[in-house]
């Protein structure tokens, strides 16, 4: 299980919303964090989030059970470990 944690602040909410569009991905809350989890990869399209660079490159609070294999202007991708 791969888990991506994103702090719930206004500018980050679209990250969780876009991630949730993948039916294989579950988005819940753990305290003030979005817990975005999946058995496989988690992929978030940057343009769909509307995030500009400063927020996009600092939106990840934690990664459990996986690692970031892509975090560029196109997408954030976390693969299972």
């Amino acid at each position, binding site marked *: 299980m791969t*888990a991506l*944690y994103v*702090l*719930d*602040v*206004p*500018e980050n909410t679209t990250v969780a919303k876009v991630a949730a569009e993948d039916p294989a991905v579950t988005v819940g809350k*753990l*305290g*003030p*964090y979005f817990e975005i989890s999946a058995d496989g990869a988690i992929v978030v399209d940057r343009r769909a989030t509307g*995030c*500009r660079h*400063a*927020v996009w490159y600092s939106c*990840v*609070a*934690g*990664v*459990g059970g996986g*690692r*970031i294999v892509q975090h560029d202007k196109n997408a954030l991708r976390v693969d299972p470990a």
Partner: protein
Amino acid sequence: MTDGTSRDATGLEHKVRGVDHTAFPTFDPAATVRFYRDTLGFPVVHSICAAGWGPEDHPDFIHFFFDIGNDDRIAFFYYFGLEPIHDRERGDVYAGFGPEVPEFFVRSRHLAIHVDDQDDLLEYRRRLDDSAWPVEMQIQHETIESIYTHDPNGYMVEFTRAMRPVTPQEDLDATLTIDALLDVVAEPEPSFGKLLARKAELIVERAADWELSRTTEGARQ
């Protein structure tokens, strides 16, 4: 600051009251006064005229202060007879850097002065743009908007406004970041990936309890 601050971690009462002053050397007091007093409108609020003393052949100097709001101050030392201590083009009058030093490092150290809103930010932009030190960069992130320039001494100065108030959960997040960072740098080869992995563990350990304690506190109030 709210929950999750250093007081919770250390038990030490937080009694300080902001910046009394931050001090920098200058070799050009005339331009420094033109920049801070005449361009930005920062009042001169204090000065010390001191004859050199002590074993180090200390030069005579003037130590002068400008108010940067909130009773905080930026101060300068002008030393009579002291020549610039380096002739490198990169950096500021305090420290020069050669080509081997990356630009992001040279540009990392700066003073950021807070303003309340965009009107005030743009007012300082106007003042700078009408001067010999125009704004070099204006950046609006989702959370802050800032303008940047360099003062006559090469020191980078930022004016910034918050686009929204800081939320309590950001204090928790900062606490978890620092705890994770300390764990990661205590081990060989620290990396961003290791920090995010450690921080995920701390989130799992603490985030739910933090939310619960906030809810409980809120119910009591």
